[in-house]
C-alpha cells in the first residue's frame, strides 16, 4: 500500500521550483498579455518570484541578509511601479489606448 504521508518539512527545492515557475509565469504573462498594465504586473510577478528565491536561500543559509534583500527589492519595485504607472499614464493620455502592440511607431 503506497505511502501517501507528506514529508515532515517541505523540501527547499520545492520553494525554488515554485519561484522558478512563478518567474516563468511572469515571463509568459509579459509575452502573451496585450494590456500594458498586465504586462507590467507580470514584471512585478517576476520580481516577487525572485524575492521568494531570496527568502528561500536566506532560510537555507540560516542568514538574515536574504530577508533584507527582499525589502530592498520591494522598495525598488515600488519605485519602479510608480514610474512605470506614470509612463503608462502619459502613453494613455497621448494615444488613448493600452494595447501594447499599438505602441510601435518607432521601428526599423
Amino acid at each position, binding site marked *: 500500500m503506497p505511502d501517501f504521508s507528506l514529508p515532515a518539512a517541505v523540501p527547499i527545492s520545492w520553494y525554488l521550483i515554485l519561484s522558478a515557475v512563478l*518567474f516563468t509565469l*511572469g515571463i509568459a504573462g*509579459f509575452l502573451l498579455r496585450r494590456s*500594458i498594465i498586465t*504586462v*507590467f504586473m507580470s*514584471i512585478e510577478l*517576476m*520580481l516577487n*518570484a*525572485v524575492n521568494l*528565491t*531570496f527568502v*528561500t*536561500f*536566506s532560510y*537555507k*543559509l540560516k*542568514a538574515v*541578509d*536574504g530577508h533584507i*534583500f527582499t525589502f*530592498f*527589492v520591494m522598495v*525598488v519595485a515600488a*519605485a*519602479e511601479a510608480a*514610474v*512605470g504607472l*506614470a*509612463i*503608462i499614464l*502619459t*502613453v494613455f*493620455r*497621448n*494615444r488613448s489606448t493600452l494595447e501594447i502592440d499599438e*505602441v*510601435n*511607431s*518607432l*521601428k526599423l
Partner: protein
Amino acid sequence: MSGNFEPTGAELLRFLPEIVLTLAATFLMVLEPLTDRGAKRALPAIALLGLVVALFSAIMAQAQPGLAFSGMIVVDGFTTFFRVLVIAIGILTILISTNYLRQEGSEGGEYYALLLFSIAGQCIMIAANELIILFIGLEASSIATYIMAGYLRDDKRNNEAALKYFLLGSFATAFLLYGIAWTYGLTGTTNLSRVREVLLSPASPDTFLISIAAGLMFVGFAFKVSAAPFQMWAPDVYQGAPAPVSGFMSAGPKAAAFAVLLRVFLTAFEPVKERWEPLLWWSALATMIIGNFAALRQGNIKRLLAYSSIAHAGYVMVAVTAHSEIGTTAAMFYLAAYALTNLGAFALVTHVARHNERYVEVNDFAGLGQRQPVTAALLTVFLLSLIGVPLTAGFFGKFYIFRAALDSNLVWLTILGLLNSALAAYYYLRIIVVMYMQPPSETEEDDLLPMSAGIQFTAWFTAAAVIVLGVYPSLVLDFAGRSAALLR
C-alpha cells in the same frame, strides 16, 4: 558583512560623490516648485555646481582608496576613473540640454534632478563591490533614465521610447536579479570578492549552476550595454528620446554598465571564465555585425548613431572578451573616447535638429559644409573618430582593443572586428558626403541659427579632447592602465 555601523570619515569620503549628487538632486526637486519661470534659469547652474563638487569629491576620494560600509563600496582607480567619466558626461549633458529644453518650452528642475539621480545611481553601480548595492545603483540609474527618455510628456515619440525602455529594461533587470539571487544562494554571499573566494575554494558549488546564475546576470548587463542579442531596444529608444538624452544614454549608463560587467565577470566570476568566454566571444561578434550592418541603411541620424553605438559596444565587448589587464585598460580608454565623441556628435545633432527635432534625417545635413562650416568641421572630427582614423581618440581606442584581443590570441575576432570597422566607415562617410558634397536642400522653412553657447562649448571641448587624445592618448591611458591593474 558584520562590522560597526557608524561609518568612519574615510568611509564617508569614499561615498561623498554619491552623497553630493543625491543632495543636489533633492535640493533641485525641492527648489523646482518654489521658482518661477525666470528663476528656473538658475537650476541648471545649481545642477552644474553639484556635478562639479561631485567631480572634485570623486577625485578626493581617490586620495583614500579602499572599502567602505563593511565592504559594500570599493573605491579604487577603476571606480574613480568611471565616476569621473560619468560625472563629466553629466556636465556635458546639461550643457547640451539647457537650450534644447528652452526651445522645447519645458525647462524644469526635475530634468536636472533626474539627471543627477541617474548619475548618482551610476556612481553607486561603479563603486559597488556587492551585488545588491550594484542592483540598487543600477535601478536608480535606470529609473531616472526611463523618465528622462520620456521627458517631453506630450511627445508621442518620447512616450513610446520611455515605455519601451521601461518595460524591456525592467524585464531584463528581473533576469539580473534572479541571477543575483542564485549567486547568493549558491555562494552564500553577494560580496564580489567573497564570491570569487568561494568559487576558488574547494567548497565551490557546481559550476553548472553558478554559470547559469552568471548567464542570468549577463542578460541584465548585456541589455544595459545594448549588446547582442539584447540590443533591440536601443535604436527605438535613442530615436524616440530627446536628442540630448539619447546622447547621455549612449555615454553614461553604457559606461557604468560596462564598468559593472567588467567588475563582476573579471573578479567574481573569473574562476569560471572558460564557461562564459565563448559567450562573450559570440556576443561581441554579433553585436559588431548587427550594429554595423543595420546602420548601413539608416536615414534617421539618431537611429544611425544608435546602431553605431551598438557596434561600438561590440568593440568594447571584444576588449572584455580578452579579459586581461590591457583588455580592461583598452575598454576603459575606449569608453572614455567613445563617450566624448558621441556626446559631441549628439550635441551637434541636437543643434541641427532644431525645435521639435524636425531635422533628424541624414539628408537634413545636406550642404552643412557651406551653411555652417564650423559645425560641419566639428561633426567631421567626431565622425572620423567614430570611423577610427588616426590622430583621433577613436583610432587609439580601436587600436588598443584589437591589440588586447590579439594579445589574448583572439585572432579571428580581431580580423572580423577590423573588417567591421572598415565597413563602418561607409555609413559615417555618407554623412560627410551629404554635408560637404551635396547642395543644401531648399525645403527648409526655418533656417539654422548659430550654435547655442552650451552646445558650442560641448562641441569644441569634446572635439579638442578627441584630437588631444588622438595625438597623446597617454593622458587618459596611463591612469586607466594603473587602475586596471588595481582591479580584483
